[in-house]
């Protein structure tokens, strides 16, 4: 069976799973079974079949599992967002359409050779800084939930940080491919541009109060630097810098100290700073082994007041964990693990340095972002607001992750075609 046929078959399976999940929510909410729920499922499947056809035309040899996994994650995410509020679900559905369009556009634009992007690496580096700085600009910048991450253009609101993440990976892939030998020899002056870009990015992130984003960017930077140079001491030095930087930030910025305190003991301020952490943990614990079932979790008190703020963005994992239970949410996390495994496999199979670094960067960014938000919710690390890839409500995140997916498929297609591997 060819890679693309396998992809189509997987999509049908995903479509069935999502359809059943949606029907389950629909029945629990309306107490009726209706063909309306079925039509939503079919529309969703149709969208992905179109994306599949674009992939068939542009990247015939690419990995056949990534697109279905993205479909499963967006499908379940949309189902849960629908369960939490129909209006948001409609908007999210629209963003998924736009995301798939961006996915198709990326594939079509770069189908001949994405590697030409390498020559624009400094442009991407600059682009990263510009994108990160946009929200700080007057007039268009907007502060939401204490973090200045948004750009508003008329009715459109966009989080440029999500796109900056991909730009940063493109810059690092290009720059590190070129300088990896000299860097590995320990010529510190070549680290200059790297540190400049990284330092500027960090500064912007601290100014915008986006701690989760800071951790993500720093992690991507260290990971790619390690892969390119094989120098463990870079990672070690980076880790030391991170700890020192964190300690400085901890003492300087009240918000960070508060987050750490609420991480260690949320019950010390159960009605204030620890409130969302505690409610989210109650939500997860209420799922138990089997979960309450999709559409049957408890998110409001008996008067209908929301118990957890930002439930469909930052805390969507708590909602899913309650309704799916340990069995379901573990399977859900295994999808992320599988996505990461396929991504690293692509990096291993890729022929050239730029492709390898690009695939590694994209895959690690995806995994680390998942870890930062879910780890924050289950209290492995301090909680920082960041989206769960493909699942959280939020347009910028969905679009950026579809572009990330397209990037991985492009690298995969080239690697498999070149090596004659049947994926």
């Amino acid at each position, binding site marked *: 069976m060819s890679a693309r046929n396998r992809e189509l078959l997987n999509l049908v399976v995903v479509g069935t799973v999502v359809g059943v999940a949606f029907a389950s929510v629909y029945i629990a909410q309306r107490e009726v079974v209706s063909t309306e729920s079925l039509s939503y499922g079919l529309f969703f499947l149709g969208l992905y079949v179109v994306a599949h056809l674009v992939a068939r035309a542009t990247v015939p040899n690419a990995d056949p599992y990534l697109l279905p996994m993205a479909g499963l994650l967006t499908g379940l995410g949309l189902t849960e967002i629908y369960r939490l509020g129909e209006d948001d679900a409609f908007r999210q559905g629209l963003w998924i359409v736009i995301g798939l369009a961006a996915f198709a556009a990326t594939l079509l634009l770069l189908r001949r050779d994405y590697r030409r992007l390498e020559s624009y690496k400094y442009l991407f580096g600059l682009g990263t800084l510009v994108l990160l700085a946009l929200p700080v600009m007057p007039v268009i910048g907007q502060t939401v939930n204490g973090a200045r991450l948004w750009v508003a253009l008329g009715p459109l609101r966009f989080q440029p940080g999500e796109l900056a993440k991909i730009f940063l990976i493109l810059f690092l892939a290009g720059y590190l491919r070129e300088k990896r030998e000299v860097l590995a020899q320990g010529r510190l002056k070549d680290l200059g541009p790297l540190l400049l870009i990284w330092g500027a990015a960090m500064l912007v992130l601290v100014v915008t109060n986006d701690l989760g984003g800071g951790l993500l960017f720093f992690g991507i930077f260290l990971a790619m630097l390690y892969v390119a140079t094989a120098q463990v001491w870079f990672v070690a030095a980076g880790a030391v810098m991170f700890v020192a930087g964190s300690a400085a930030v901890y003492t300087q910025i009240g918000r960070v100290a508060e987050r750490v305190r609420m991480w260690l003991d949320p019950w010390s301020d159960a009605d204030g700073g620890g409130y969302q952490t505690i409610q989210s943990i109650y939500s997860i614990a209420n799922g*138990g082994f089997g979960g309450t079932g999709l559409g049957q979790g408890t998110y409001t008190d008996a008067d209908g007041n929301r118990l957890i703020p930002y439930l469909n963005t930052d805390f969507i994992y708590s909602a899913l964990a309650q309704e799916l239970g340990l069995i379901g949410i573990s399977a859900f996390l295994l999808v992320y693990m599988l996505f990461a495994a396929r991504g690293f496999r692509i990096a291993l199979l890729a022929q050239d340095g730029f492709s390898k670094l690009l695939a590694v960067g994209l895959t690690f960014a995806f995994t680390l972002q998942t870890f930062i938000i879910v780890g924050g919710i289950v209290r492995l690390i301090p909680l920082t607001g960041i989206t769960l890839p493909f699942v959280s409500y939020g347009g910028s995140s969905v679009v950026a992750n579809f572009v990330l997916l397209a990037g991985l498929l492009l690298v995969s297609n080239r690697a498999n075609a070149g090596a004659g591997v049947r994926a």
Partner: protein
Amino acid sequence: MNPQISRLAVAALVLVTALILGTTYWQAWAAPGLADRQDNAIKVVAQFTIKRGTIYGADGKTVLARNLRRRVSGQTFYFRRYPQGPLTAHAVGYSTRARSRTGLERSRNDFLTGANANLATIVDTALDRVRGSTIEGNDIVTTIRTRAQRVAMDGLAGQCGAAAAIEPSTGKVLVLASSPSYDPNLVERNFAAIGRRAGPCPIAPLLDRATSGLFIPGSTFKVLTAAAALDSGRFTPESAFVDPGYCIEYGKRVENYDTSSPFGRINFGQALQHSVNSAFCEMGKQLGPDLIVDYAKRFGFYEDPPIDLPAGERAPSGLYQDGTLLPQAEQSKVDPGRFAFGQERLLVTPLQMAMVAGAVANDGIVMEPYLTDVVRAPDKTIVSTTEPDELRRAIKSETAAELVSMMESVVSGGTGTAAQISGVRVGGKTGTAETGRAGRNTVWFVAFAGREKPEVAIAVVLQNQSGTGGTVAAPIAKQIMEALIRPASNSS
């Protein structure tokens, strides 16, 4: 670069594995502890997704508590409504979001929510959960006779008092009335309104005076002194006393209720019939307080009444000092004379006094009082039926028979004539505890009644009265008993 990529891949997979382990901790390891936390709003909400069982009166038809179904943001909730309003507020209690639960709603919560350890219920509840359908609790049929309960509430209306009636042979609580009462439907919506209804009474309407209100027993305690005197063999109903109108204790005179007309030479039976303090004072001095306390304990004093109400809504009867029961060592030092006719530091609950009357009428055996008669599954099959249980034998059978006839003489020609019911044998004892201030008497009537055999035992108490037990409490007790006793069968 491949070795680094492999290592990074392993690191990334470890990160996701850590997420699975972290989630496992919360959902498997920590979940039971978190579920028990007071501030866990999800668990509070979950209580209201359960369709609680309906609570019925003894007829199995009168609804005392039912559900109001309401959908809030996609979830179905069941809130409580009490169609009878204040009628059975204390026995049934309430179940609300803000103020937890009281009464049977609290003590029988497991049955009402289907969480009881009955195998059939566990299976049903588990299946409900698997199917995702609403969990339905079991219904409860109480022992409360709603018509008599209404008679009691009407009789007590506007006063501070309580009434408790039980079936002597089983311990079924037929009436449990406390006045002032409150509307349990208001607990959620307008709690402040309840407090304002207290009126002249010293304690808030939420208190169940029938089971946890403590009152001075006055002369009704003479039933216990008489039980001790007769059962110990120290006295007989014919034992003679001379009533000078007072009794000398510690060199001082302890006077009768009415000192103007001393009875002179009387026997024990007459002393109870006319409630002669001097005779009981004499008896108390001869018996000593320890023996009387011992007998009181046999009737259930000094322990929470074993009724199926929450622990906080029951109070033990006995000698009190500063709000707590007097320790054993202090008992011997109480004034035996005053103690014998119910003064001293004695405080009793109406339920306890009904249990005393019930034991006398039930051949000397105290039955455990209970409110839950039958528990029914949602499909109307019976989950459990409460079997009557003996608390203990308090007095010998012969003693009980002697006391029955002595108490019947109180109603036929003594202080309790207001409680006479034609065609029914009634025995009783009045009580008027003076607080020293006019219009502040606590008045009692404790009685049993039945056509062939005793069908009901009752205690009625009212506070802040200017009348006596015989004139104020006895007529109310009579009305309640009339409502409870089977009508005369015309066939024979």
